[in-house]
């Protein structure tokens, strides 16, 4: 076992240490906090690279043995925690630490003038530690702990400018909304623990994601004829939905853009929101488990046709029709390949034969949980993309785009397995971080202006930002061949096209891709092309709108103060190198990463699945793959040209100009701009219901329970009054009389005791005389 596997805990521990140390730093010690956080991230990145390299050499048995330890023991009950290094964790580690590092560096420039700079880096480091903890944990419990920590830091960072009411409200909204999903996660975790007695993922055959536990879970049927595995999967998916902003829990993510832009880039675009996708990928063996009754059906089918089950045979026909090579149809082969990996980790050879058969059958029957994941993802992808079309805030557009892309990832997980979803996750992390940082640079350059209608014509002023932003935009939109987003999205669409259950998700995905290209073109046209619209407005007005933000994050000092005071016109400026360098690095990766997962050379997918990489250029030109590629190319071209036609050709001249879409279909556009009124719907239903319940509880509390309590208290008061009466007038009266008598007697007796010597002596003398007389009298007698 490699050294790094044993000491994987160091990766989250270092940023945690940095967070702890910088929390002790004074507000002034900016350089200390920033260098501590960045240094810890560099160390974590290097360690992550070491871990990544370790996993590269292993083909076949692709999972390092996990390191588990006993946390505590209560009688028979034990709780174990641990960490595991597998390609899934390794690739996430590298991505999180690398993107995190770049964003940390970017933050040094972006937050340079914030008075709470130190606190910001403390939270960032804490977030990085928690996120890395999520990635490496081998226990659902440890994952949950880090998951909640991530949510907490997200809350702290969204509300970083807590003096802004909107930021405070957004932080609360994010926290509570994700918490709704986390309730499901938590219940699922408890259920899983009560069924299997362990929360470890991998534990030498005993873990909850390994064959014995899965078989047990699949065999158990609970309410509504649902298998325990399905129920648990759905509950855990609730947590993933909350964190990853899937419909209907997506409402918090756009509001989370109230936080500083680096936070939006790191947490709400690249890493944390991807944690939901990662969770689903992590528990994928559980998700894809098909209930026992379905398995039996599949097994009977298998016995009828001994070689292959029905669906597989059909697919085999399709494949053979197109080509005879071994790896033609990635998803099918991947599914088959996924199955034995679980079996391989079994310690005993006995269960292997059975398990293999079962797994083969299970691989072709899509589980209920995965169906749900797919549908939710597909709906989210299209839904959020629609909303993004009508937004005007540069960060909100990106936020809805993030929601949409997260939907793609979920869909990819559902239709194509871990590798498909994860590939899009990684590429998306890079280009979305790039877009957010670019947006941050634009906002920074435009003196905290976020409304795209007041931008325009920025291309000459922000050359580096424009270049990198364009790369990110094309990657997101999926411009063919040279951009990462094209390949990862194509992979998802490709698998969706062959999804046996329904073709709905595929068409939703295609629709989403069209919209993605469209709204990104619209945004870029608004921001960078056309003529400048900012100067038309008085600067004071633009400034007032952002005055609350100015309060803490002063606009960069790199522009002269006179430019603002002058009012009518001030020039946007390019950001300092500390901000543009990460942009360039991210832009490079947004291009390069795509080539690791093309159909011709699906290195990434093979790496995640754990078999040796294969390369075959000819696959690009098979009809099977090229048809999808062609379709998505057409769709992207359509979106781009539509965007250009509406926004680039005739740029609007003033901020007050109506959107071209609005001119065409005002009612539809209003619905889109209102985000389908989901917030309003929640306002009218959930929140009103909540308020009503609170009102009812309040009333009940005041009238009913309070009345009961009051009645009881009056009863007790009455009793005590009676008791006091008896005590005072019956018991005490007699007692007092007795006491008075005794006291009177004591006083009388005390009067005899004068305390003086002579009266005592007198009494003695009298007694003596009496005694003498008595004796002598007796003598006389």
């Amino acid at each position, binding site marked *: 076992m490699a050294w790094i596997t044993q000491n994987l805990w160091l990766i989250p521990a270092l940023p945690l240490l940095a967070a702890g140390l910088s929390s002790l730093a004074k507000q002034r010690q900016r350089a200390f906090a920033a260098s501590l956080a960045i240094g810890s991230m560099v160390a974590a990145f290097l360690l992550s690279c070491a871990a990544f390299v370790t996993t590269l050499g292993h083909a076949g048995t692709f999972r390092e043995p996990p390191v588990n330890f006993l946390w505590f023991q209560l009688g028979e009950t034990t709780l174990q925690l641990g960490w595991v290094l597998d390609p899934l964790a390794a690739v996430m580690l590298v991505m999180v630490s690398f993107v995190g590092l770049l964003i940390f560096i970017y933050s040094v420039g972006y937050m340079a003038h914030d008075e709470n700079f130190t606190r910001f880096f403390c939270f960032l480091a804490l977030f990085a530690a928690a996120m890395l903890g999520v990635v490496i944990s081998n226990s659902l419990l440890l994952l949950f702990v880090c998951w909640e920590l991530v949510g907490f830091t997200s809350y702290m960072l969204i509300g970083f400018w807590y003096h802004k009411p909107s930021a405070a409200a957004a932080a609360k909204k994010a926290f509570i909304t994700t918490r709704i999903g986390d309730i499901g996660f938590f219940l699922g975790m408890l259920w899983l623990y009560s069924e299997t007695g362990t929360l470890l993922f991998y534990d030498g055959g005993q873990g909850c994601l390994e064959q014995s536990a899965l078989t047990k879970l699949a065999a158990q049927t609970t309410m509504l004829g649902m298998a325990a595995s399905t129920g648990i999967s759905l509950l855990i998916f609730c947590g993933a939905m909350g964190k990853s902003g899937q419909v209907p829990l997506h409402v918090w993510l756009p509001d989370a853009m109230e936080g500083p832009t680096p936070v939006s880039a790191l947490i709400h675009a690249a890493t944390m929101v991807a944690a939901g996708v990662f969770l689903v990928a992590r528990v994928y063996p559980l998700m894809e488990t098909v209930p026992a009754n379905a398995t039996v059906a599949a097994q009977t089918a298998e016995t009828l046709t001994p070689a292959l089950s029905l669906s597989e045979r059909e697919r085999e026909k399709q494949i053979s029709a197109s080509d005879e090579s071994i790896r033609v149809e990635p998803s099918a082969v991947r599914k088959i390949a996924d199955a034995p990996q679980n079996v391989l980790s079994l310690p005993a050879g006995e269960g292997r034969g059975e398990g293999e058969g079962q797994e083969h059958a299970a691989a072709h029957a899509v589980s209920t949980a995965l169906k749900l994941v797919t549908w939710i993802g597909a709906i989210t992808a299209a839904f959020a993309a629609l909303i993004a079309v009508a937004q005007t805030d540069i960060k909100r557009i990106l936020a809805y785009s993030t929601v949409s892309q997260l939907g793609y990832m979920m869909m990819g997980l559902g239709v194509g397995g871990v590798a498909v979803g994860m590939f899009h996750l990684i590429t998306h992390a890079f280009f979305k971080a790039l877009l957010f940082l670019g947006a941050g640079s634009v906002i920074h350059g435009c003196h905290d202006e976020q409304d795209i209608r007041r931008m325009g014509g920025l291309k000459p002023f922000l050359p580096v930002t424009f270049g990198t932003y364009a790369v990110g935009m094309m990657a997101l939109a999926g411009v063919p061949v040279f951009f990462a987003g094209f390949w990862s999205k194509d992979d998802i669409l490709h698998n969706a096209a062959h999804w046996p259950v329904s073709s709905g998700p595929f068409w939703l995905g295609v629709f989403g891709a069209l919209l993605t290209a469209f709204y990104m073109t619209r945004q870029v046209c608004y921001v960078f092309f056309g003529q400048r619209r900012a100067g038309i407005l008085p600067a004071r007005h633009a400034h007032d709108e952002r005055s609350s933000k100015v309060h803490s994050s002063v606009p960069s000092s790199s522009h002269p103060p006179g430019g603002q005071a002058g009012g009518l016109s001030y020039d946007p400026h390019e950001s300092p190198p500390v901000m543009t360098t990460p942009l360039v690095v991210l832009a490079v990766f947004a291009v390069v990463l795509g080539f690791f997962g093309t159909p011709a050379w699906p290195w990434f997918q093979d790496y995640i699945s754990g078999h040796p990489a294969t390369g075959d250029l000819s696959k690009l030109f098979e009809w099977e793959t090229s048809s999808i590629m062609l379709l998505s190319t057409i769709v992207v071209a359509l979106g781009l040209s539509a965007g250009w036609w509406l926004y680039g050709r005739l740029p609007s001249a003033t901020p007050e100009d109506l959107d071209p879409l609005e001119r065409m279909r005002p009612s539809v556009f209003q619905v889109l701009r209102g985000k389908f009124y989901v917030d309003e719907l929640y306002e009218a239903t959930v929140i009103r219901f909540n308020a009503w319940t609170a009102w009812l509880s309040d009333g009940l509390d005041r009238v009913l329970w309070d009345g009961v309590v009051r009645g009881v208290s009056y009863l007790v008061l009455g009793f005590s009054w009676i008791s006091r009466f008896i005590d005072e007038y019956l018991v005490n009266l007699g007692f007092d009389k007795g006491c008075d008598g005794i006291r009177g007697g004591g006083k009388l007796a005390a009067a005899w*005791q004068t305390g003086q010597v002579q009266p005592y002596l007198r009494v003695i003398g009298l007694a003596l005389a009496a005694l003498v007389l008595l004796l002598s009298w007796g003598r006389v007698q």
Partner: protein
Amino acid sequence: MTPLHQYLFLSALLFGVGLAGALTRRNAIIVLIGIELMLNAANLNFIAFWRFSRHPELATGLMFVLFSIGIAAAEAAVGLALIIAIYRHYRTANLDQFDSMKG
């Protein structure tokens, strides 16, 4: 030779004088003097009875008086020490004012 009863009358007289002094005077030291006188009267009785006893060689009366004198010395020492202590506390030797043991 003086008969016994004369000594007894003298002893009774001394006792009466001592008792009268102890009962009538205010000063604590005079009271103590009275008590000493009463003790001495008792001693005189013992000596007289010894002188007139049938077995004077046993010297019982003498021994009794000897011990009585010793005890009287102890009593006088303690009594006077008490008077000094009380005087120091109350700044007076007036017995009428010593009534802190009053019931």
